[in-house]
């Protein structure tokens, strides 16, 4: 590390003083009607965008429309399932946003008229906008497996949105007998929170090891490989006897018995290509597409996701509508809460600039994503992104996974940082 000296300070201060001389995001709407932004969806993307637009330019009128009064995060919901934390601890209201001057409407958006620039809700209200930000999250392909549809989530919850189904799955695990079998069916790519199903298996295994050690978790994957696979595998070997005769977790790739075609609610079985597997608990995480309103509003492509421009996140289909978060095609940015937050901030800056008749500023993107495999065992993946030649790109040499040879001390710190990450990102979004 280079030493901190006055000489070094002088070297760097030239550039930064110049930066400081430009006031950031100063309100431009002096006189004239104020600009209106309507945000559809109050998850990580929508709530962050609403808050940061107000911070960047308090003259913009921001209305956020979201059907739920309390938003439960998907991330850290696996710790609810394992009994490590309460459902309330992942629930957030919109009081924080209201304090920033965001008008919060509890309603469901039923239509977006891109021509007239009006958002309509189920209760029949209309909200005109100058620019609209759509952050609808994901919806589910209910027709992917025979016998599987939305009506069975009470018995076979996906629990992929934080909320009531998280509690259902937690209660099922708590009620399961020792020696029971949990079947987890992760979806094919792309889907929200790529490491999530495997953290879920880890958290469930942690609970079962302590409380019902004869139990088993079978992961019937629809893929050949998964996020942070090396680190998860290493953690499972260490804590849950993975790849031994006594392994608590069994992972079947799509070609080694994982691929499924049907779910039978009455028998509590999953029909794989090779075997039919019976579970005391079945957790099918269905294949995904953009949230429902994105489809209604015509913002999706033939694969069910929303194409956007990478700097402003403006839809390439409808002008003046920006789509952020899991629903947007933002690759190489992943479908994660952190990425949604980054996209929201870049979009907020772009929207403020565009409303003022200027150009969207250069964006900055980061993703950091933690998984907790066991007590004292956290792992992460991170990446810094830039915008170059009209595309979002990874900054070469940055990011990557926790090292495979990290010490116990470092794994323990990553668990503490995972919990810090949760507290900070939710406070940044809803606080």
């Amino acid at each position, binding site marked *: *590390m*280079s*030493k*901190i000296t006055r000489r*070094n*300070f002088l070297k*760097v*201060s*030239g*550039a*930064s*003083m*110049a*930066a*400081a*001389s*430009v006031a*950031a*995001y100063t309100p*431009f709407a002096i006189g004239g009607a104020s600009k209106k932004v309507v945000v559809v969806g109050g998850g990580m993307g929508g709530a962050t965008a609403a808050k*940061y637009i107000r911070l960047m330019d308090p003259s913009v009128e921001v209305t956020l429309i979201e059907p739920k009064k309390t938003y439960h995060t998907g991330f850290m919901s696996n710790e609810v399932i394992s009994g490590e934390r309460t459902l309330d601890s992942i629930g957030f209201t919109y009081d924080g946003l209201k304090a920033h001057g965001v008008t919060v409407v509890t309603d469901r958006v039923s239509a977006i008229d891109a021509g007239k620039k009006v958002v309509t809700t189920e209760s029949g209200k209309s909200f005109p906008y100058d620019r609209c930000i759509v952050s609808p999250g994901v919806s589910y392909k209910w027709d992917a497996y025979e016998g599987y549809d939305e009506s069975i989530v009470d018995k076979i919850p996906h629990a992929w949105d934080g909320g009531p189904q998280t509690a259902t799955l937690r209660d099922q695990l708590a009620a399961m007998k020792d020696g029971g079998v949990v079947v987890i069916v992760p979806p094919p790519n792309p889907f929200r929170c790529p490491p999530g199903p495997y953290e879920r298996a880890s958290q469930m295994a942690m609970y079962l090891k302590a409380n019902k050690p004869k139990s088993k978790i079978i992961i019937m994957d629809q893929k050949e490989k998964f996020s942070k696979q090396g680190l998860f595998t290493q953690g499972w070997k260490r804590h849950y006897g993975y790849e031994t005769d006594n392994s608590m977790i069994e992972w079947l790739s799509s070609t080694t018995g994982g691929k499924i075609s049907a779910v039978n609610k009455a028998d509590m079985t999953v029909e794989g290509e090779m075997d039919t597997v019976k579970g005391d608990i079945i957790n099918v995480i269905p294949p995904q597409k953009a949230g429902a309103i994105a489809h209604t509003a015509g913002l999706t492509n033939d694969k069910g996701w929303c194409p956007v421009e990478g700097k402003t996140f403006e839809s390439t289909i409808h002008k003046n509508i920006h789509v952020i978060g899991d629903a947007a095609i933002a690759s190489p940015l992943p479908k994660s809460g*952190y990425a949604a*937050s980054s996209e929201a*901030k870049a979009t907020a*800056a772009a929207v403020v*600039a565009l409303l*003022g*008749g*200027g*150009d*969207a*500023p*250069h964006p*900055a*993107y*980061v993703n*950091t994503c933690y998984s907790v495999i066991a007590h004292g065992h956290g792992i*992460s993946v*991170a*990446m*810094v*992104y*830039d915008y170059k030649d009209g595309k979002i790109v990874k*900054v070469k*040499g*940055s*990011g*990557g996974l*926790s090292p495979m040879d*990290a010490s116990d*001390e470092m794994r323990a*710190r990553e668990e*503490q*940082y995972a*919990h*810090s*990450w949760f*507290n*900070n*990102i939710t406070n940044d979004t809803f606080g």
Partner: protein
Amino acid sequence: MGTKIKMMSAAVLASGVLLSGAATAGGASAEAISYTCAGCHGFNGNSTGPATPTISGASQEYITETMKGYKDGSIASTVMGRIAKGYTDEQFAMMGEFFAKQKMVAAKQDFDAKLVKKGAKLHDKYCEKCHAEGATSAEDDSGILAGQWTPYLEYTLSDYHAGTREMSKKMKKKVKKLNEKEGDAGMKALLNFYAEAK
């Protein structure tokens, strides 16, 4: 380059439209870059804990040089080094400029009230010279310790001991003396003094 940017901002000011992105001649602004840190380090750099450090209120130089250390690996880290590799020294200086301007909010955390007095004494004796005003000052480009999250301070001390993060010569001397005279109990008292800060 500084002058060029200043001229540019003057032009932007004159046009009546202020856009932060204009500040860096094509790159992301200090705000845009720094906003991405909030997910782990908290809104405006004030971490809500329990372990990730608060970075608001630190001096620009402290942040710039610390990030350089993470980037070149001379400071051990879990994830910070991986992320630091995504930025230039100029961008570190921009982050530093942003976070130096933010008001630090002391961490709300538990501490042992019985140890605070002793910790305060030890601080005055061994640390105050550089970590001035009860370790609340960012002057001299030293870290603000008062109100920092205790787990982070513990990690840092542990890294100093392990040799995976380097102390300045001055600090090495003082820490050695403190350890010889007061041992782990002294360090514990010191940490409780910093944790008590409001």
